[in-house]
């Protein structure tokens, strides 16, 4: 990725972060830290991976993306709107009755949402089913699933992790937003999550470890998906609350809602008006 494109996408990510912070403040909606940690991943996916074009939303051959860490829905909505899946003005109605923009994603709420997520550990099995069917039905599409590191507590994640390589699902990519926190503590203390990359390797996956805030590196990792005979796990090293100094790596922002002054300070740091 050239420097100009990189700067352009970093600006997109900053705008998305600003939208997310505003939504959290207006709707008094939690999980801000979890949203901010995955914005760069989503930006790389929607702007760099081929096959994520809003125009293809009903194409049976389109690439699929399952947003399995549903608690970070604000980030998904802001990215979808910025990418043109629906009008940006709609983000102002987030959380309002009848808006379709629930605190966890609803299929049918807005274009681009494939699965109702929020209960963790659902996305990878469903993504695997899509990938397995693509193989048997002769479709070329790829499937991407974004999970949180806390989500790796769920047994169903590891059921799918065991099953995917046996089915040679190399059209499946999981991205783990490894921000080192879950709701109430360090993800590597609550369960023995580390060494996370080695776990996926041991299960038979190709593994790429990447700086989860380096959009160019994420783009390269996403584009490397497919054709290897193995499913791909991208372990994205991230910082919860990334982009706002007073939220970074502070797990209070799993549930805290920013007040007006904090929104203003955050926007200033992000270089937004």
């Amino acid at each position, binding site marked *: 990725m050239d420097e100009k494109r990189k700067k352009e996408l970093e600006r997109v990510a900053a705008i998305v972060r600003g939208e997310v912070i505003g939504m959290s403040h207006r709707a008094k909606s939690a999980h801000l830290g979890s949203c901010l940690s995955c914005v760069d991943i989503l930006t790389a996916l929607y702007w760099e991976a081929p096959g994520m074009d809003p125009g293809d939303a009903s194409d049976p051959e389109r690439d699929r993306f399952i947003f399995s860490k549903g608690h970070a829905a604000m980030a998904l909505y802001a990215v979808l709107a910025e990418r043109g899946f629906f009008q940006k003005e709609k983000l102002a109605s987030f959380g309002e009755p009848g808006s379709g923009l629930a605190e966890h994603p609803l299929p049918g709420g807005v274009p681009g949402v494939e699965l109702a997520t929020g209960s963790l550990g659902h996305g990878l099995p*469903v993504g695997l089913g899509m990938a397995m069917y693509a193989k048997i039905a002769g479709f070329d599409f790829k499937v991407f699933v974004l999970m949180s590191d806390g989500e790796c507590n769920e047994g169903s994640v590891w059921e799918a992790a065991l*099953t995917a390589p046996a089915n040679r699902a190399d059209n499946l990519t999981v991205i783990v937003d490894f921000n080192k926190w879950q709701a109430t503590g360090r993800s590597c203390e609550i369960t023995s999550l580390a060494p996370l990359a080695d776990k996926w390797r041991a299960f038979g996956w190709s593994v790429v470890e990447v700086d989860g805030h380096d959009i160019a590196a994420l783009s390269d990792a996403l584009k490397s998906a497919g054709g290897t005979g193995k499913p791909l796990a991208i372990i994205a090293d991230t910082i919860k609350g990334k982009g706002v100094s007073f939220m970074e790596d502070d797990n209070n922002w799993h549930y805290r809602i920013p007040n007006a002054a904090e929104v203003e300070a955050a926007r200033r740091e992000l270089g937004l008006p």
Partner: protein
Amino acid sequence: MRNAFAEQITELASRDERIMLLSGDIGNRLFNGFKETAPGRFFNCGVAEANMIGVAAGMAMCGARPVVYTIAPFVTTRCLEQIKIDLCRAKLPVVVVGIGAGLSYAELGATHHSCEDIAQLRTLPNMTVVCPADPVEVRLALREAVEYGAPVYLRLGKKGEPDIHAKEPDFKIGRAIPLRQGKDICMIGAGNILPEMIAAADLLEGRGISVSAASFHTVKPLDMEYLEDAFRQHEIVASVEEHSVCGGLGGTVAEWLSEETSIRARLVRCGVPDTFFPDAGDQAYARKYFGIDAESIAEKLERALTKL
């Protein structure tokens, strides 16, 4: 029922390339015919039922017609949330098949009994619950279920059940199949208990009691038309099932009944009481233990009729 399922799914898959068969590491030789007929479309998903339901959902979202098969408690209770969110919330055309429902595998112990699956699955929006009474109904139900366009739970017994129907009856999901017409008691039965129910009906008729009977194979949606007539035309309507009296066919009819005003008959529920089977023993023994063998059902209904 097991063999009827294997034969029918193989036949359907030969005509419809969208059909995928997912198994939770059971039925190895049973599906040899399927594997030959539909190469690459049998998936042994291992002993990982939550994942298996998710995989079926993903396949269905891309155009497949997956049929998921394993032992009843493992394909229902164990992965209930996957059924709720991945299948029902998305209203996907996936058939969930539970083999060994009720007390079919009584001798295998409490883990293999499934007397609460109807109650759990029927509360899920978009779910349809069908309990075929015999191998003939298994074939008919499966044919309709794969074309249903929404999740269907097929609750099967085991192998070797007798045919209730001498020839193919007129079968439609949501519509009871009348088996005989009488005037004192109407017995409606769901699923693999039907042979006991019919034997109980014979016993009652031998004692001078006139009995109607129907295979009430679909618990959701309820055949309200049949129920309205049954409750108007008889003294007693008896629900019969190898399932808990909490929330199964009897519970569902009781809910419906509570809002009906012009009802004449009394409802008697014959099913498994709200307790675990505490002992070793086969299905026949377990049925007797819980009072849902033919003789116990007949006695219970005869008593109920004399008490009116």
